[in-house]
Every structure is written in structure tokens, then in C-alpha cells.
């Protein structure tokens, strides 16, 4: 049964076999969480949003047509959830969050390595936080979600050329922020 495509599973959910959503949850909740995490840098909020995305997919299951990829649909719902959330309470990223987050990840072997890695991470988190949402989004999709430009174009509903340009600008900006902060 695991060999079923995402679309086939979602179409079954649409047909009323709601339990099948569990399979899609298993397949994608980590990836989705990763995306939401980088968009909010807030663990609890991201977990809540994962929940909301799956709820919306259940509730609006009839709008899934199967003509596009399931994950594109999932990302578009996730983006809507983010927008809604952004509206409700301007999600402020707390100061000091970067260090805290950097601490939570596995570190290097020796204490020196650990410190070095932690510094690099903290710096990067800080830089990522400063990026505009658009730029953080595109970097998250291409770097952390490892999606192809073509797929990102579908999810964001823009042309592939626009994705390439935006990805480049985002990376350049991140680089500038990161380097300037080091000095």
C-alpha cells in the first residue's frame, strides 16, 4: 500500500477515506514542519501550524483535484496558514532566539568545534531572521526543502525565471547580512 502515489492517497481521502490522511501525515509532517520552522523560527508555533495545515487539507479536501502534485497543494495551504497567522499577531521573533536555537542542534566533536559551529549557526540564524519573508521562503524551499526551481515556481505561482532571480537575490542578501554582521 505504501507504493501509492501521494495524489492517489489524497484522492482517497477526498472520497471519504479520511484515515488515509495519516499516511500523508507520516510522509510529510517533518518536511512541512521544517518549512514552517524556517518561516517562523518558533517551535511551538510551527507545530501548531502543521496541525492547521493538515486540518485545512481535510476540511478543503474537495478542492484537491489531483491535476497538480499533492505537495504543491500542501505548500500553498501552508503559505496561506502563514499569511493568516502573520495577520493575526505579527509574529515577532524574539531576541536571543538565535542562540537558543543554535544550542539545540547537535554540535561538533571537540569543544572548539562545537563553539565554532555554534557561532556559525547563531550568525546564520540571525542573518536568516533579518531576511524578508519572500527571500527566507525561497531559500527555505530550495535549500532546506531541496526543491527544484521548477517546483518552487509552481508552489509560489511565479515563473521559473522569477524563481531563479529571486533565489539569487535572496542568497546575495543573506551573504551580505552575514558578512556585515561578522565584522
Amino acid at each position, binding site marked *: 500500500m505504501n507504493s501509492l502515489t501521494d495524489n492517489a492517497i489524497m484522492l482517497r481521502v477526498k472520497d471519504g477515506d*479520511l*484515515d488515509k*490522511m*495519516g499516511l500523508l*501525515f507520516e510522509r510529510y*509532517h*517533518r518536511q512541512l*514542519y*521544517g518549512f514552517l*520552522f*524556517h518561516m517562523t523560527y518558533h*517551535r511551538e508555533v*510551527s*507545530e501548531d501550524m*502543521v*496541525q492547521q495545515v*493538515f*486540518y485545512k487539507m*481535510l*476540511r*478543503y479536501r*474537495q*478542492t484537491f*483535484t489531483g491535476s497538480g502534485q499533492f505537495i504543491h497543494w500542501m505548500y500553498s495551504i501552508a503559505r*496561506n496558514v502563514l*499569511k493568516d497567522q502573520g*495577520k493575526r499577531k505579527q509574529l515577532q521573533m524574539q531576541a536571543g532566539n538565535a542562540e537558543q*536555537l*543554535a544550542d*539545540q*542542534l547537535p554540535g561538533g566533536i571537540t569543544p572548539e568545534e562545537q563553539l565554532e*559551529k555554534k557561532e*556559525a*549557526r547563531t550568525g*546564520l*540564524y540571525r542573518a*536568516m531572521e533579518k531576511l524578508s519573508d519572500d527571500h527566507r521562503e525561497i*531559500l527555505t524551499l*530550495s*535549500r*532546506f526543502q531541496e526543491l*527544484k*526551481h521548477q517546483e518552487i515556481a509552481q508552489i509560489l*505561482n*511565479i*515563473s521559473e*525565471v*522569477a*524563481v*531563479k*532571480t529571486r*533565489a*539569487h537575490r535572496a*542568497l*546575495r542578501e*543573506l*551573504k551580505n547580512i*552575514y*558578512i556585515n554582521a561578522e565584522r
Partner: protein
Amino acid sequence: MKCEQYEELFAGWINGELTPAEREKLDQHLIGCAGCREELAAMQQIWDVMAEVKAPEPSANVRVKFQAMLDTYKESVQDQKSNWDGIKEQLSRLWQWQPRWPLAYSLAILLIGLGCGYLFFHTGKGAEQDQQLKELTSQVHELKQTMMLALLENPSASERIRGVSYTSEIKHADKEVIDALLATLNNDPNVNVRLSTLDALTHLANHQEVRQGLIQSIVQQDSPLMQSAIADVMLKLQEKRSVKPFKELLKQKNLDPGVKEKINQTITQLI
């Protein structure tokens, strides 16, 4: 300085998505351009550092909560679908139990009891009848609202439009109705459904949250039809707060030229 034309290839280079021809083209340029070489190397470095900040694992709670949500949702769907079916089913189940006389007996007692109660409460007192009439009206109203909310989730666009058109029959649109309409305005996959929702919401513009929702919706609309329609609405409502999101919208590169003109006009008329 022709470097800009190569910059488009940078993202693909880092991502490993370039075709051999594109790669060749970029490599050729890089040989002769120290600036781009440096830039690209710095970007690659950042890209590599990013590997260090992958998102943490979600906690185990997520799965537990998901399962709970799924179960609740399944129940609620069942409830909606088969309140009546459920009663019928339970009755027929009771019917099968009939041979067990004690149960049938207690059932009979229960029915008689209910009947007496009904007679007792339904005699006399006009005030009480008024009360019942009011309840009945509110039930009908509620029913209409339920029907509308249910129609908004129908897979057929025609049915969803029908649902939206019921808005005019709901006298006091409450928060649930408004939220549902705003959700449809922003998320419905069909442009025509969104267009009729926009019109329905325009008639509810005396509600503050509707105005808020409409203004917030401006930047969310990607269809030129919706963008131009929402410009009309804002002009009609003379909503100055919409100028900012419209300006935001004008920054979008792929904006339809006709829509752009229209929004520019709208902004000048609003200011």
C-alpha cells in the same frame, strides 16, 4: 558590465540545476571575471553553512495531536452527515433487540413518559408558544446558515456560488459566516466563486471585520479579475486604508498592465 546576465545562472549553479550548456557559459564568464568568481564563492560558502541549520525534529506531540484532530474531525463529519440516519440506525438496532421483552417494556415506558411530558409542556401559556416560535425562527435561520456554510465546502463551484448567494438571506451575519466568506474569498480555487464572494462581502461592509478582511485580501489575490474587482470595491467604499496594500500590489512584476492602470487610478481617486 554584463555580469547581471550571468547572475540568473548563479542560483542554478549552486543548486546543481544548470544544463551542461549553461554551465559552460557561466564557467567561460567566470574565467575572465574575478568579481563574479568571488561573489559566487561567497554564496557557495553561505549555502554550505546553511547545511548546519537544518530544522530540528518536531516533538512527538505533533503526531498525538494530529491523531486527535483526525478523530475529532471524523466524528464531526459523521455527525453532520447522519444525525437522522443515526437515529434511524439506533431505532432499528433497538428493534432487533425486541425479543428481549424487558427492554421493549422500558422503551414503551420511556415513550409514554415523553408523550406526557410533551402534553404537559405544550398546553396553555401563550408566552411559552411565543418563545417556541422564536426558537423555531432562529432554528430556521440557523439552518439556512448551516446550509450556506455546508455549501461553501461543496466540490462544485456552482453550488459554492449558490452558498454565497444565500448570504443576502441571512439577516444578521455572525462571525462564523463572515469568517467563512473571508476564507472563501482568499482560498477558493475558483475565480468566479471568489468574485461572487467579494460582492456578497461588499454588502456586509458595515461590519468592521469585513472591511479589515477585504483590505487584507488585496495582496492575496493573484487573479487580475479579482485585483480589478477589489479595486472597484475599495473605491465604492472609499476605503483609504487600501492605498497601502494597493501600492504593495503595484510592486508585483507580473501584474497585468490593464489592472495596473486601474489600480493607479483607484489610488489617485482615493487619496
